[in-house]
């Protein structure tokens, strides 16, 4: 199937359930393990990831396809556009866009919505090094998504990550009252429970297909 033909809605659902960025692409593990310890931090970080991932994917798509991609600048006079190759800067540009966006959002929130800033402020800086966001941008380029597909993918991946971290936080609340073998506490049991969760999510496979 040509990736250009998949409807954005299909990509959205696939990004949440069948191709969950955390459970099938293993991205965003560090913050997943650290922040699923408590329910409120999990919700905060999940919402922040969803928000940032949606908007930075849109921004990155525009920048990549209108400036960086091969042939994007061919309107420049004298064949200049064909001689410039900016594609290799994609990685640096994506990170810069993500970091700048996070910075701007933080400033806007601080100015206009102190309550939101209180809730999300702590998580926003962490997002710059959350590999899920950069991963979404890189997958979008590799799979050759169009604009709406890319936005749907960014939004869906954020929601998928939110869903996974919420479930995990709920599970870990229960885990606190059960006896876990020594040495397996913390990271070990979190990884194993994540494995069981990934298994449960595999039941969604076949619902939609994007690859």
């Amino acid at each position, binding site marked *: 199937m040509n990736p250009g033909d998949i409807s954005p809605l299909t990509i959205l659902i696939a990004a949440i359930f069948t191709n969950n960025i955390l459970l099938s692409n293993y991205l965003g593990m560090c913050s997943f393990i650290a922040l699923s310890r408590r329910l409120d931090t999990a919700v905060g970080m999940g919402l922040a990831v969803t928000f940032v991932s949606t908007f930075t994917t849109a921004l990155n798509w525009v920048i990549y396809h209108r400036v960086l991609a091969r042939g994007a600048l061919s309107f420049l006079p004298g064949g200049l556009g064909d001689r410039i190759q900016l594609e290799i800067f994609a990685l640096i540009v994506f*990170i810069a866009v993500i*970091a700048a966006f996070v910075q701007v959002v933080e400033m806007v929130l601080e100015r206009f919505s102190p309550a939101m800033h209180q809730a999300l402020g702590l998580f926003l800086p962490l997002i710059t090094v959350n590999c899920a966001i950069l991963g979404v941008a890189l997958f979008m380029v590799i799979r050759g998504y169009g604009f709406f597909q890319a936005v749907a993918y960014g939004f869906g991946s954020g929601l998928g990550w939110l869903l996974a971290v919420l479930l995990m936080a709920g599970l870990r609340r229960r885990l606190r009252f059960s006896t876990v073998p020594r040495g*397996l506490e913390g990271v070990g049991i979190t990884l194993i429970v994540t494995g069981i969760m990934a298994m449960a999510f595999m039941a969604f496979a076949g619902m939609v297909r994007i690859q």
Partner: protein
Amino acid sequence: MNRHLATLVTPIWKENPIFFHVLGICSALAVTTRVSNALVMGAAVTCTAAATGVFVSLLRPVVQRSVRLVVEMLVIATFVILFDVMLKAFWYDMSRQLGPYVGLIVTNCILLGRAEAFALKNPVLPSLLDGVGSGLGYSWVLVVVAIFRESLGAGTLLGLRVLPEGAAPAQALFLPPGAFFLMGLLVWGLHAVRRRP
């Protein structure tokens, strides 16, 4: 000399970045379906970590404290891009298989963490050794996970058959749940070994 040796060895075992600091787990799970992928990924992280260490250490006198994060990120991204481009040029198949995970080394906390915690405060040689040590500490974990996943999940090692013909490979180890289970068990095992006096 002993001090230098300690700088190199500490991150390999005693303060292993994956187990001790829980950094860089994402790629440790993603690229370990084949030993060859794990080896290349390990080489990528080791090279970029070493180069980053040297450069950040060299830049110490000129970099202001307020812009150090930006500088560190730029140095890391530059080396990651260099590795990515070279891999694309000389080993395209491998580059395709690793997909976005080479680029994602940029957000691998091991590199930024070591630059921030070590290279920013130390001379060039120790920073180089610390980078190499952290990279090797990350690599051996990757290779161990990959050995389990490839030999039991596909019945091969570096493409050579190791399981007898009739034996059915446990394909679950190839899929995400298997990776999570294996990593969890490995963390458990390592904690158990380490706690022993």
